[in-house]
């Protein structure tokens, strides 16, 4: 059994790897084409574009892991079926479910490694890639993207704006009372964000607005305590997909505390967490599609139909996640639930194969 496990595991792993390589390679090619269009903006050149594409490659491989697991499993099973190896295995008393389980083991193992990567390695790579790209694109070499970012802190709205030419970060803070009347406005021409979350503003204009009129004061320096740490600031400016699992959950609670919409971060978190389940579902789906009575119909057709079905399901699931965001449905129902449903459906269909 051990020998068979190893044989099956190896044939699945090599098919999976090849498919993943094709898909990730193809997407990298299109990504490179897109990146090369930006050459000449700022200091961005060919080596930057190549570095960006290679740094984001592991992320793309992770993204393509579930569809390649499906195709890899279908191809591996198809080859086994074609050479009558599947028949031989089953004649030897090994059930289809058992074969599926053998495929599942290397897949789950690889995915655990990938999830660890999604927590510790891939986000660092993607964030480096992203930050390097943004820095090279802007003339000055600062981190924040155009327009800076907005956030709110109870009754305060904070807007950090980065000038592209010199990288100076100006800040605008608007203070409202409980009846949504503006009570204060602070404008700082330069901002330094301290490690403890204190923001130090320079060349400050401070206005206090009352119903009787307003008072204006110019201050050389003003410190606003406990606003956002540099890490929290960076997390808010990076795209949600590039954040690690722990950064995502941190950002979600940070945003919810500020009564901001955390939907996109929540979806990204769920999509990362359901990756192993959806990969298992993909493998499960391939079993009833390929393990049919031999010679009943052409195998090629089954492989194609299975592949189309699986790929459609995988992307419908992703699209559902985004549609759910628009319709305000919890990501649990749009990500984990369909994956679990297909896993269960696949298991039931596989049980029916004798």
């Amino acid at each position, binding site marked *: 059994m051990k020998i068979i496990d190893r044989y099956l595991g190896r044939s699945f792993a090599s098919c999976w790897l*090849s498919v993943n390589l094709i898909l990730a390679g193809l997407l990298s090619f299109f990504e490179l084409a897109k990146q090369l269009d930006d*050459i000449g903006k700022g200091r961005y050149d060919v080596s930057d574009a190549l570095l960006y594409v290679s740094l984001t490659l592991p992320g793309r491989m992770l993204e393509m892991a579930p569809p390649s697991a499906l195709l890899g499993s279908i191809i591996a099973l198809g080859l086994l079926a074609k050479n009558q190896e599947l028949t031989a295995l089953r004649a030897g008393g090994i059930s289809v479910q058992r074969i599926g389980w053998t495929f599942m083991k290397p897949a789950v193992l690889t995915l655990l490694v990938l999830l660890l990567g999604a927590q510790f390695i891939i986000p660092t790579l993607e964030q480096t890639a992203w930050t390097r790209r943004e820095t090279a694109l802007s003339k000055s070499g600062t981190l924040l993207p155009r327009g800076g970012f907005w956030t*709110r802190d109870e009754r305060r709205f904070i807007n950090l704006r980065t000038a592209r030419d010199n990288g100076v970060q100006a800040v605008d803070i608007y203070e409202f009372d409980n009846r949504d009347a503006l009570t204060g*406005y602070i*404008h700082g021409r330069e901002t330094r964000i301290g490690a403890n979350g204190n923001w130090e503003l320079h060349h400050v204009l401070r206005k206090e607005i009352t119903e009787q009129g307003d008072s204006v004061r110019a201050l050389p320096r003003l410190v606003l305590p406990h606003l956002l740490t540099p890490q929290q600031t960076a997390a808010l400016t990076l795209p949600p997909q590039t954040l690690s699992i722990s950064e995502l959950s941190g950002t979600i609670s940070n945003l919810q505390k500020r009564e*901001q919409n955390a939907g996109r971060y929540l979806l990204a978190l769920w999509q990362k967490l359901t990756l192993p389940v959806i990969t298992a579902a993909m493998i499960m789906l391939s079993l009833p599609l390929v393990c049919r009575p031999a010679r009943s119909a052409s195998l090629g057709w089954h492989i*194609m139909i299975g592949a189309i079905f699986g790929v459609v399901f995988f*992307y419908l699931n992703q699209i559902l996640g985004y549609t759910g965001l628009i319709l305000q449905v919890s990501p649990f129902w749009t990500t984990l639930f369909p994956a679990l449903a297909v896993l269960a459906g696949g298991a039931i269909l596989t049980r029916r194969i004798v």
Partner: protein
Amino acid sequence: MIIERYIVREICAPLVVICTVLIMIFSGFSAVRFLNDAVNGLLSGGTVVALVSLKVLIALEVLIPVTLYLAIVLALSRLYADGEITAMEAGGLSQKKLISAVLFLAILLALMVTGLSLHARPWAYGKMYLLETRGQNEFDIAKVEAGRFYELSHNLVFFAEKLDPARNQARNVWVWEFGPEKRRVTSARSAFQTNGPGEGQKAIVFQEGSHYSLNLKTGTDHLVGFQENVLQLEPPQIPPAKYRRKAASTEHLATSTDPADIAELQWRFSTGISTVLMALLAIPLSRVAPRRGKYGKVVAAIILFFVIYNLSLIAKTWVEKQVVGAVPGIWWVTLLNAGLVLFLLPVQSPLRKLRLRRVRTSGGGTP
């Protein structure tokens, strides 16, 4: 003739499967990317579908060559591994016949790819640019996400605490306008968007709120409380005749002397040629000894394909940026590719002779 037809058919079966699956994966992948924008309120569902179809149409000039290449590697590997080619060779099939069978299919698809590159590509890019600009016009404040900041234009930011989709309204709304040395803030109990009066004009109507005008220099600030206030949105500027290279017609590019135009033109002509060259390259890569590991060289073949294609992308950029002149242009990659084909392909060619001599002197066995 029958054998050639058989080989073509063996290649066509995986060709159809791979092409279908790749197109589906690619469209799913693009749909997810565009949906990100749809969530940002920038694109509607219909626009996403149209954009994905156009993306796939553009991508076909690469998807078809990669499919053909993989299909040849897979099909011929199987024929070699099952000893079928050995049997055919015993029956008098020359390498030339095998090559001509592949060449027939490759030239057919290459013509299609060239047609796509020369005509479909500029058309699809033109349509895509149009949809993207029009997409920005579809923005509606009642269809966005609550609790997020939206940049409606570079000097206008919108935020709503709650949405009321039933009444098409946003609740507890803030809008910031940035002017030179000025900040204007409007906070209101509710807001909705109206179209008109003119074509493409839009306005946000605020109810029960106040409007502040803050001066960053001296000057006085203003505060106005209102029951209803209308903010006219500037219609997004559609660049009417902005020149987009990828959407330019091939006839126009042919007359241009701009290096970037030349690069684009050379790229459009090179896709078909690459299709044929890659198909020919697939023949020697699929040679495996009978009954050996069937798909041993597939991984190497995939990597080789992407190395060559990425190289031609870089070559195109170099022509655009005038690192390389228009005369070698991007064709040095094509020449490199052709050299590799002649070197590896089992037919009489000077490069091939060189290789055989080296194999003989090093005492290698198999040719």
